[in-house]
């Protein structure tokens, strides 16, 4: 799958500062009925963005200028908790979100982000709070993954990210292709592993 590399981007940042925003909220079940990745724009935060009759809720941040064109999100802790549905990440990419900054991310969501070119940055809560203020003022920020720096009009923060993940995002690497280059290692491991545990193959069809 082709993934757009993330090197350095600038844009508006929208704040969703609640903790524990789960993937049921990010992508409700009504939008999970497809067999491809497309058509998820409408589903993102659907029940926050739209009333029961389908009209936009004017109070929701992503329905208001300038945040309706947000490139980034800053959120509360444990963003993306709950269901493993990668549809949440696909949808966020489809509405144009390319980075999310939070005090913490749920594990499955965090891994799903990297696979889809969505940069997830973990920062301490005092720093995300400063970004929430920037977001509320509608000011743009720049995220430089090469230098690992977030720059806002009033401040800049360095951030850490696991190096393999950083390289994957910078290059838009095909993770499966990279692993298949280690195929001989995998086959050798598997042969030894299964030989040492003869009861495992027994359970197989």
């Amino acid at each position, binding site marked *: *799958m082709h993934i757009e590399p993330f090197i350095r981007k600038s844009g508006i940042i929208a704040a969703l*500062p*609640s*903790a*524990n925003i*789960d993937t*049921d*909220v990010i992508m*409700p*079940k009504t939008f*999970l*009925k*497809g*067999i*491809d*990745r497309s058509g998820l724009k409408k589903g993102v935060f659907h*029940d926050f963005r739209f009333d*029961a009759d389908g009209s936009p809720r004017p109070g929701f941040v992503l329905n208001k200028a300038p945040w309706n064109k947000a490139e980034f999100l800053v959120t*509360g*802790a*444990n963003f993306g*908790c*709950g*269901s*493993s*549905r*990668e549809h949440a*990440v696909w949808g966020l990419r489809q509405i144009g979100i390319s980075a999310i900054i939070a005090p*913490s*991310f*749920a*594990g*499955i*969501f965090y*891994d*799903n982000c990297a*696979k*889809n070119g969505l940069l997830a940055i973990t920062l301490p809560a005092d720093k995300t709070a400063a970004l929430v203020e920037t977001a509320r003022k509608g000011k743009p920020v720049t995220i430089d993954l090469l230098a690992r720096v977030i720059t806002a009009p009033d401040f800049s923060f360095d951030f850490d990210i*696991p*190096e*393999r993940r950083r390289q994957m995002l910078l290059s838009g690497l095909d*993770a*499966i292709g990279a*692993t*298949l280059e*280690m*195929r001989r*290692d*995998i086959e050798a*491991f*598997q042969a030894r*592993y299964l030989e040492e*545990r*003869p*009861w*495992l193959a*027994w*359970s*197989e*069809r």
Partner: protein
Amino acid sequence: MIQRTLYDKLVDSHTVRKLDEAGNEVLLYIDRTVLNEYTSPQAFSGLREAGRKVFRPQAALGVVDHVNSTRPAIRKAQSLENRDRQISYFGENCRDFDIELFDLLHPNQGIEHVVMTELGLVLPGMVFAAGDSHTTTYGAFGSLGFGIGTSDIEHYLATQTLAYTRLRTMLITVNGPLSVGNTAKDIIMAVIRRIGADGATGFAIEFAGSTIRQLSMEGRMTICNMAVECGARGAIVAPDDRTFEYLSALPRSPSGSLWDTAVSNWQTLSSDPGAPFDKTVEIDAADIEPMVTWGTSPDQAIPVTQAIPALDSFQGAEERNHAERALAYMGLRPGMHMTSIRIDWAFIGSCTNARLEDLRSASSVLKGRKVADGVRAIVVPGSSEVSRQAEAEGIARIFMDAGFEWRQSGCSMCLAMNDDIVPAGERCASSTNRNFEGRQGFNSRTHLMSPAMVAAAAVCGHICDIRDMEPGSAY
């Protein structure tokens, strides 16, 4: 020698090679997976587009569970008329990639995690990754199970491995006898309340202590299953004689001399004495009471005897706002007693609490009683096998006599991807795992609790304390 935790041992024994110098990231060999019809289609399409094969097809099982109806007539039509594109594409994929499939009408169909564990496909010492967050269930057998997204399903299918980052480790010890009316569900809900919905984010939990040892395998599965609701991406109980006894009766467990070889290996699966954990939590079982959620996050839970906390009791503006918002969504106020809350629906089902033990426990409350007027009650067995056993034992009859609808198996109203939906504004007592906004339907309101507590609420028409219903009885 370095003292290692059981989690360390499982990761070490499955490490194909390190991916960084420190060994924090490794290429992890995955023993087996289970696939469902809603998170797998894009993974198979990816394989098709790239012309890739499945590395080890016999190490995967496909089970239809998330989107199917649990009503016999609709289910049959779904299957025969190929009406559901996810179900039919799943069938094509399993056929084309040579993966065993339990389709809608297969006698072993059920909720994927219930099916895997009842067949004996989950054995101690193994590592599982699957496209469902509740794959943590498998840790009850002394294995490592964790949820992955669709891209990683594709990665697994193509390579039998995942690029894996080691987690930190947490030891949660629960000691002492569990008092009457409490279940494994109440233990894990108390844990989640104590450490928070992100309390174990970035951690693998090992559960230990006398209370955990006394639990049945079903109870341990409930605990490991729901550990993901506090962020754990792995929840392990070291295997013991109870584990081996349970496995010995399952259809695909090893037998004969292989069984003896396996058991002697499994007996080595425990954390070394003094192995370092990054965090430890101790819980006294005597403090545990039947738990119920009042909010929209699984950590917003209290003992059923208590009232909804005052907003001033929350630490910090963010947590207070979260509680206020949750209460507005739930249509509740601080100070309300949980037992005063009326319900419209009662649901017993899900990979958390729809095994035979759960149905037995709920049916013991329902025997000779009726569901209250105005409550619609549904029970969805965890698997077709659970359903057959419950019918043979007479449990199904008790549910139906009480006024419950006895359905066929699936995930059903736990996440409402099928036609079992709680209508907007209505309230459900639920034996499931998530009380998120909209989880059981747009603007639906969910109260999580044990299956026996759901049965009690169904009878009373409001949330009630199981201990007030049948004094002194044990489930």
